């Protein structure tokens, strides 16, 4: 990633939106090892509407990586619909809506609408992300991402 030097506000927004498109492309491919490289080392992710049993804050790449690796592993297949980026006046920040649709490994269908605000550092990595989703719909995904309790 290239530092911010000599970039106009519009170029910064374009770079950050391109990163978000890459972000969802990599998640769709379940390539969380490449995806985590889009995050800053000391990143923070907030999940204010997380249902019970799910952390509302993740700090640092290892925690963000582990959480999303487990989440994405719960899908047999997933897509995120048409990303709707909403850049802020501050060019280091982009809000977005996206629409996960997928089939879980359990066989259940999953659908939700997410809204997030992403803050990028000087090198174009995600430093802070705040992500909202419907917790009722997310509960099925959370349950599916948990290890089997050995009932069978």
């Amino acid at each position, binding site marked *: 990633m290239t530092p911010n030097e000599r970039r106009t*506000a519009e170029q910064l*927004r374009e770079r950050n939106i391109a990163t978000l498109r890459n972000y969802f492309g990599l998640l769709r491919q379940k390539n969380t090892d490449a995806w985590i490289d889009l995050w800053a080392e000391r990143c923070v992710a907030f999940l*204010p*509407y997380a*249902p019970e049993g799910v952390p509302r804050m993740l700090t640092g790449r290892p925690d963000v990586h582990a959480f999303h690796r487990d989440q994405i592993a719960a899908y047999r297949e997933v897509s995120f619909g048409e990303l709707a980026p*909403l*850049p*802020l*006046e*501050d*060019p280091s*920040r982009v*809000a977005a*809506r996206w629409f996960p649709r997928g089939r879980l490994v359990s066989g259940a269908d999953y659908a939700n*609408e997410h*809204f997030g*605000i992403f803050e990028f550092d000087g090198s174009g990595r995600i430093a802070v992300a705040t992500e*909202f989703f*419907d*917790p*009722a719909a997310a509960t099925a995904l959370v349950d599916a991402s948990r290890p089997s309790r050995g009932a069978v």
Partner: protein
Amino acid sequence: MAMPEGEMLPAADRRARNIDSLRRYFRLLEEGEIDEWSTLWAAEGTQLVPYATGALPREINGRDDIRVLYRNIAAGFERLRYLVLEFQPMADPDMMLARWRPLCHLVGGGEYTNESFGIFRFDAQGKIVHFVEYFNPAGFVENYDSFSEE
């Protein structure tokens, strides 16, 4: 063709005007002045509520229907205050991101609070034409019946 007045304003002035409108928007909600509040909306304004549950609609079309819905909701409040109110301008000067935390004392007793975010879009005259509101339905669902008169 005459250009609407709003399109003549520089971006910074449109942002300032829209923030003023939103300050009025939340103050009028606190005061329960829903008729005056509704004048901040364009006649064809629409609201989306993606996480709506129960009787709350996911989409409301038109200022008249929006006013009726908010009148019903406001009737359930003894008192409403916003503990947090923040606005973040967007690259598009006719759009604004807002964050707010309502604290409502309900007519039937008890309190309701939430952590809400919204995206507002304004027309050239500074009226709200579109609003997408996100709140935690886990906090809202148990209280919606208390908000509604009907």
